[in-house]
């Protein structure tokens, strides 16, 4: 009821020129696939999609994956209290409500009185304005690394110790053990993790809480762009079409994931 009806409504909206105000609000016309045709040709849409891909690649595929793995790997042999402290800190970033972390990061990177500027002694530097995407990527890496770290921790503890020791006896150095034993053993986990965090990041709306797509849409990833199009912009029909496109992309990613998993099994 709460899932299907809005989805069908979106599907319907995508086929109309429905608007919040004006003539099209009172009598929306069915325009068929016009919205979709327009969406594909629209430079703003393509830019938003490009930013989203950059966001996903930078913060999820590279950022969270790599940082999560590094944390899990280096915590393996750490003392119990170090491990507990780091894990708590990382988890905290993950479980805090989006509104809270959004404010934290606005304060952290603020031009006047921001924490980072205080640390770097660069007062007045507006990070969110000058490097909106870069800042978002750093933010989301920080925010979401916990999941990757936990998943990789579990995966690493399942790598048979005897295989690692076998490699050590053969004379394998640390990075050779990583390449020849660890990574091949956790390939499935890397794949699962990459897909899940990609999907989540692709759909993430938290950037809106921080930048609202500013400056001039330079930080508007696709979900933010759609929101801006629909509500302040009032073009509900067009936004519906974009939403459905996004849904399709999600579906394709999920399908690819299921197929790869099946082939492995």
């Amino acid at each position, binding site marked *: 009821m709460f899932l299907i009806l809005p989805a069908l409504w979106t599907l319907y909206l995508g086929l109309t020129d429905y608007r919040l105000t004006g003539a099209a609000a009172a009598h929306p016309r069915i325009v068929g696939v016009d919205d979709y045709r327009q969406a594909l040709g629209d430079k703003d849409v393509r830019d938003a999609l490009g930013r989203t891909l950059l966001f996903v690649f930078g913060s999820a595929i590279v950022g969270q994956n790599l940082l999560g793995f590094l944390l899990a790997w280096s915590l393996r042999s750490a003392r119990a209290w170090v491990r507990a402290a780091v894990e708590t800190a990382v988890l905290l970033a993950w479980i805090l409500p989006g509104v809270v972390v959004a404010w934290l990061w606005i304060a952290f990177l603020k031009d006047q009185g921001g924490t980072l500027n205080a640390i770097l002694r660069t007062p007045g530097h507006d990070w969110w304005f000058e490097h909106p995407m870069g800042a978002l990527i750093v933010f989301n890496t920080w925010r979401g690394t916990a999941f990757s770290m936990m998943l990789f921790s579990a995966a690493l503890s399942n790598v*048979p110790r*005897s*295989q690692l*020791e*076998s*490699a*050590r*006896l*053969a*004379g*394998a150095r640390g990075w*050779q053990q990583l390449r*020849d*034993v660890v990574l*091949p*053993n956790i*390939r499935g986990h890397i794949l699962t993790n990459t897909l899940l965090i990609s999907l989540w990041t692709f759909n993430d709306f938290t950037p809106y809480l921080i930048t609202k797509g500013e400056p001039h849409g330079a930080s508007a990833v696709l979900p933010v762009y759609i929101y801006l199009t629909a509500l302040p912009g009032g073009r509900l029909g067009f936004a519906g079409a974009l939403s459905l496109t996004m849904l399709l992309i999600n579906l394709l990613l999920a399908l690819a994931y299921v197929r790869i998993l099946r082939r492995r099994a």
Partner: protein
Amino acid sequence: MRVALEAVTKVYDGDVRALDELSLEIADGEFFVLLGPSGCGKTTLLRTIAGLETATSGTVRIGERDVTRLPPGDRDVAMVFQDYALFPHMTVADNIAYPLRLKKVPRAERRAKAADTAARLSLGPYLDHRPAQLSGGQQQRVALARAMATRPTVFLLDEPLSNLDARLRLEARTFLKKLQHDLGVTTVFVTHDQAEALALADRIAVMEDGRVRQIGTPREVFQRPANIFVAGFIGSTPMNLLEGECVPGDGDPTGSWTDEIDVAGLRLPVPEEATGLVGPGDKIIAGFRPEYVREAEDGIEGRVEIVENLGTTSLVTLATTGPSVQLTVPEEREPAIGTTLRVAPQPGRTLLYHADDGDLIDDS
């Protein structure tokens, strides 16, 4: 190559003593078995030789080289793990050649070497298979081949036969013994299975609580266990260990008398090697194997409680007034449950142990 351990101690987490001032020497080319119950430190000892554990104190030498602080990869040893530790994503050939790859041996050469070693272990047809496609016995041979391919100076085997089913284990045992004989590589083999130890070893070290309780050939360890721990551990049927006391003999007409031992009312002569080492009043434990117990009119009386078929013999457990006594009888000569038997050890087959510390009483 010779392996020597001098006063090796390994302490875990500050207080668990896995190895306690342990010293032993393994000769070049010897098949040496570390035997003991789980938790006795045998695997820790093997891993300390391998370098996977570092001794808390003491020295480990391989040949003339002190390797105590050397990482495992620099010790020139190879190890076969209980679970074989094959790399599941590599083919058999790549598994075998893996140590050679790390040593930067050119691809063609290591491929040839892998094929060569594989052929020797009848793995020729499986070079391009993944480990998961092989049977347990074949996987075990791949692990052996990987260990052999680098021509190590010492082979370390950690219960390599325990994951095989009973029949295959016997075959693998014979195969392993022949292989070791052919290669002539010093081999240290860990097991908790005394039959495996007796079958394979040139010499056995029986361990308990991080210490060596006896070192000897299978024959020595089987025939003359140095203490009641070894006596109870070695042998497929456990040795009868009965408490008793040394008593003055009845004497003879000339007036001289010899000491005897009194076990559960049975009088036995003091074994030759213990003569003069025990006197009247000394508490002792008499040990004799079920295989060396026969029926005797003046023997210990007991009621047949359990009869276990061992194939060509059966193990009979007698309930006596004291602790129960076990003996083996030939097939088809099994007594009926509930009947009464009188039994005694065959002459010359009794060992005496001190009742206090459990050590063998002999003149050596």
